[in-house]
């Protein structure tokens, strides 16, 4: 009997069962190349997961989001390990980008999930952690050559600090050249705040962050008068 690995993987994530999810991926990979895991199993499953999670379907909790991100990290680690064993360079293809929670915000989960999904999608991610000042964001972005900053805030009170990050971008003449992605619970509840506080874009869930960062990277590249990377 043919197994529906995508559904099984979705079920395991929904049950916050990281080990079970990885066993399902291993089983699928036994009949395929592990390189196909991302494109043929993980990405389609996470797309479905992201859709259900964004709509707060029953059974999709904070824990399931965490496990989905961990499973993406596990797959990436395995891919890097295999590439290393073959003597291939472990170079990432996209980025770099910078992530952090805005000043005074101490809620790391959403940011960590975004980082996991970006890395699994091949982005070089520099994660600055929680309570990051505008200057720290810009210093890191300029030092790394990042064209996208992802800033997270959970509440309105701390989301207001994203406006200071926008001011710092403007002050350093980096507006447009470095795009600002805003995310976190309050932006999900009130997406209009993204524009209010100077963001260039947002995504309805962490799973959809890679597509957002792709779009923003292209905007920054166009702003610099350069071609596609």
């Amino acid at each position, binding site marked *: 009997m043919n197994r529906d690995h995508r559904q099984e993987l979705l079920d395991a994530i929904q049950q916050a069962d990281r080990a079970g999810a990885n066993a399902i991926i291993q089983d699928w990979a036994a009949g395929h190349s592990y390189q196909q895991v991302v494109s043929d199993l993980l990405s389609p499953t996470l797309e479905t997961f992201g859709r259900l999670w964004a709509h707060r379907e029953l059974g999709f*909790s*904070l*824990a*399931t989001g965490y496990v989905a991100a961990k499973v993406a990290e596990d797959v990436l680690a395995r891919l890097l390990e295999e590439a290393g064993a073959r003597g291939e360079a472990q170079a990432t293809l996209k980025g770099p980008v910078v992530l952090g929670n805005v000043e005074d915000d101490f809620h790391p989960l959403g940011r960590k999930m975004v980082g996991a999904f970006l890395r699994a999608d091949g982005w070089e991610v520099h994660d600055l952690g929680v309570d990051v000042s505008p200057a720290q964001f810009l210093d890191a972005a300029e030092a790394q050559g990042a064209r996208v900053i992802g800033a997270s805030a959970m*509440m309105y009170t*701390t989301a207001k600090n994203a406006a200071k990050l926008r001011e710092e971008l403007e002050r350093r003449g980096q507006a447009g050249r470095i795009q600002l992605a805003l995310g976190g619970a309050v932006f999900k509840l*009130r997406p209009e705040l993204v524009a209010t506080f100077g963001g260039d874009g947002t995504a309805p869930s962490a799973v959809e962050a890679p597509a957002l960062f792709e779009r923003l990277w292209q905007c920054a590249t166009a702003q610099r008068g350069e071609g596609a990377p």
Partner: protein
Amino acid sequence: MTASTRPIRCIACSIFKKEIEALRAAGRLDLPVDYLPSMLHMVPERLETRLQTALAEARPEGAGATVVFAYGDCCGHMEELAEGPGLARSEGINCCEIILGSDTYRTLRREGAFFLMPEWALGWKQIFVNQLGLLGPCAREFMREMHTRLVYLDTGILPVPEAELAEASAFLGLPVEVRPVSLDPLLASLEQAAHAARAHDAE
């Protein structure tokens, strides 16, 4: 009716109920209070609706009381809800900052503390398992990645729930620290909010 004679009410999260009632019983706080369940925190949209209803009930036809919210920034429109003549909110991002004061709260958060207020410590399993879905190894992995320790904020009203804290510590894989806290920052926050609401009302 002038601002100074207008009746004043407080709409508070039940997370503060024992502490506020202790302040009232000790004669340190003269403020009638309506409490809403703290579990509304888990569904901010529902909390917002309940707060709007509570506010409308406290101020029928716009001629009602000056209203103080004993809340953190717990729903998407909290700031707007507590804006306007005769309205104010206790200062602080969340209940833990209101209880601890800003400096202590930030210091502990930077150290990776996860706070347990007395009411939520007693119902920790309901929150972590039923609401957040943290089961089995996932609970430990998650908490250890995000935090360094549990900090129980002992406001001195209830006995420290040693058994529940030990169970939570084992389940979540983090050590627990019991931190005695004064009710003074909560009292100061409520008094400051009441003053601000009345001053705003008088403008």
